[in-house]
């Protein structure tokens, strides 16, 4: 269920597009921001309020990598491993993170605190290597810097 402020936001957004279906991405964003992920129940809810089939919502959620159908760790660390980051030592950052957190890329810790994953180019190629935690970008990373960031988040 969308909370009150998101419901209001939805009414505003409706004025921006000629179809309800165009609100699929914006509403999925709202749900994910509210709940942390997009459950099957939420997908059914979105399908109902936007008057599109559930299968369509499921198709959209699975197509876009930023939508999560399962809960993620409280801190989702996304490390770019694409070319420019590779050239500037993202391997070291990946290894360091895996060692520090005792888990592998793609995993979520048992206490649901951390998820670490590899991602494609994030548009930080000039400040590589980098990772993002939510909307926050951490750039020009070194193992020491990673330690400081992890300590701050812990």
């Amino acid at each position, binding site marked *: 269920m969308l909370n009150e402020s998101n419901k209001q936001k939805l009414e505003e957004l409706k004025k*921006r*597009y*000629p*179809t309800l*279906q*165009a*609100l*699929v*991405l*914006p509403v*999925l*964003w709202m749900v994910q921001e509210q709940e942390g992920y997009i459950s099957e129940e939420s997908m059914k809810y979105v399908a109902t309020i*936007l008057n*599109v089939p559930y299968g369509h919502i499921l*198709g*959209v959620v699975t*197509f*876009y*990598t*930023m*939508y999560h159908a399962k809960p993620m760790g409280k801190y989702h660390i996304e490390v770019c*491993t*694409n*070319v*420019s980051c*590779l*050239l*500037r030592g993202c391997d070291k950052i990946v290894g360091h993170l895996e060692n520090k957190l005792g888990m592998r890329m793609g995993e979520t810790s048992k206490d649901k605190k951390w998820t670490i994953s590899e991602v*494609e*180019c*994030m*548009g*930080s*190629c*000039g*400040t*590589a290597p980098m990772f*993002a935690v*939510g*909307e*926050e*970008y951490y750039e020009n990373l070194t193992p020491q810097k990673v330690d400081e960031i992890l300590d701050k988040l812990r």
Partner: protein
Amino acid sequence: MNINPIDSEGKSSWDNIILPNIPDLQGIQTYIANGGYEAFKNALEMKPEAVTDEVKKSNLRGRGGACFPTGLKWTFMPKQTTKVKYLCVNGDESEPGTFKDRQIFESNPHLMIEGTLIACYAMGINTAYIYIRGEYGRWINIVEKALAEAYEKGFVGEKILGKDFSTNIYVHKGAGAYICGEESALMNSIEGERGYPRIKPPFPAQYGLWGCPTTINNVETICNVPLIIKNGWEWYSKIGAPKHPGPILVGVSGHVNKPGVYEMPTGVPLLEIIYKWAGGVPGNKGIKAVIPGGSSTMVVRGDQLEGVKMDADSMKAAGSAVGTAGLIVMDEDTDLIKVLARIAKFYYHESCGQCTPCREGTGWLWKTLKRFEKHEGRLQDIELLMDIANNIEGNTICALGDAAAWPIQAMIRRFREEFEKRVSPKEARVPASAVA
């Protein structure tokens, strides 16, 4: 490899016009105090066709990857139509090695808004969507704030500045998919669909968003428009390379001392960009190769960089392309096979899966390259890679397939020895014909 630094200290003589060095320019007060929205006001005094004409004569070419002439694209929009018309400003920016539009969002969002307004006026458009990749949440906030300011000042909305012209501009947030930068996938994404590219024709100017005439332009392209209207096409067309003029944002990454986004006129030699702007290569190493315009563009050998410039003609002559002007520099110690395998993995991951050659081919390319990466390549695998790439190129709905094929073809043609070095010793002893 023997490359003499041109000037490792030299400062550029170029004064930025897309990203001027003015503090707080993202605030509308500062923007207006520095002449902002004047071009839009000028445009409103012109006939819409005259605005398009100005852009056409300026020779502005798109900065989204294909260098397509912008004014010409605008003329494809039907003038007599009962349908609604749309503009999409493409800020999906997901091509590896590209990080320039982000700089515009961050330091000069009003230039983009002003350009969007002028484009809408020229084409008779009343709704524009600025599509920004979902990862850029922070930058979306900056753009939303700038938009709110522009609405408040009456530059956007109904009856703008008391004229009979209304335009709304909205930000649409992506959700993680490189393919949504492809213009038809972008439109599907706005419509609330999966980001599947559409078969063309029909082209967007005929059948775009919700079946209506639509123009798609890159963020940086749009930012050039106010400059042209303010200073005139003649002024603009004299900047940089005559056939591909104007300022261009070059994002330099990889093995350079000062990576970053640099604004310069088109036509600057790549060596000058690397040594003069980006501070040269760490440890004074030689350059093994560069990828000049984002991961889709063809690799150029370091020993063939002499005279190659950042403009469409020069890059074409060098067997590559300007692309997004995301220049990736690789020093003499770079493992090019590893780099190529990573690029192949990217396209495999980002293929939307609609076309068999792209869906399957990108996977085979990646798997085969992984064999080389582990020194387990077979001699005939080099031909196999070329074959797969050739079978993808030109046989797909959208250009992602080509973009996956080009880097492979170029790397094999220009660095065959790198592949041969990675053939498994076991395999190398057996004649290729015997192993098939």
